[in-house]
């Protein structure tokens, strides 16, 4: 088994708000992140796939195919978007880094063919990241 990781970057706006909570509760839990006008981050995404090395190609996965899937399923949908307003998953889900990692996994996992998805890591800032390994 060999693991291969591909990085990508995207920039997006978001804010944290749960409509089931009061304005005060939202403010208390989410603080500055509750500002409804939104704020943004430069996110770094690391997608790790795993598989056996193909004896013919020497690859775990065709990197171009992985790059294309990441661009189509993730970057085109998230880059330079307001997550709460433009990405359907976040109409009902708060776009925390945790939920972003889960959403990216759910977008990628069914589209990957040769290699299996191992981990999605999303850096919101250089000092904060979330890892998701699928439903354990």
């Amino acid at each position, binding site marked *: 088994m060999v693991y291969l990781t591909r990085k990508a970057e995207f920039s997006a706006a978001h804010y*944290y708000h*749960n409509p*089931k*909570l009061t304005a005060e509760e939202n403010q208390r*839990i*989410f*603080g500055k992140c509750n500002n409804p006008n939104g704020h943004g981050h430069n996110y770094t995404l690391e997608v790790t796939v795993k598989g056996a090395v193909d004896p013919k190609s020497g690859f775990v996965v065709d990197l171009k195919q992985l790059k294309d899937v990441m661009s189509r399923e993730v970057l085109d949908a998230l880059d330079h978007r307001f997550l709460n307003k433009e990405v359907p998953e976040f109409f009902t*889900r*708060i*776009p*925390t*880094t*945790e*939920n972003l*990692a*889960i959403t990216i996994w759910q977008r990628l996992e069914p589209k990957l063919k040769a290699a299996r998805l191992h981990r999605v890591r999303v850096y919101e800032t*250089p*000092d*904060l*990241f*979330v*890892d*998701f*390994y699928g*439903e*354990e």
Partner: protein
Amino acid sequence: MKAHLTRRYMFSASHRLHSDEMSEQENRDVYGKCNNPYGHGHNYMIEVTVSGQVDGQTGMVCNLVDLDNFVKSHVLGRYDHENLNLLSEFAELVPTTENLCIAIYEIVNRGFKSAHLERIRIEETMMNSFEYCGDL
């Protein structure tokens, strides 16, 4: 769904690697420059990784403010700008980064109850890093 959240912090401290169980010469042989009796220092970068179910109401594994407050008061507050050799946990234990990893793991594991502690990782320099995941 379970996710892992990692937060990075930094502190600066001095230490000297020296074991009373070894002769002066043995200490010099084992620890080299790190045995300098006057001590030396590092900027330590710590990564704290916690895990848990992503809360349906908040979209979070745990509130980052709680984690930051805990680490700032119990870890950074204890180690930043200190001489590690003078702290009680290193009275009889050499303050290697291995032992520092274990000490910080114990503090977070004992006191932080909002999520499960997975791992403490410390970069002593850009070239050296150490991880402790509990006694597996």
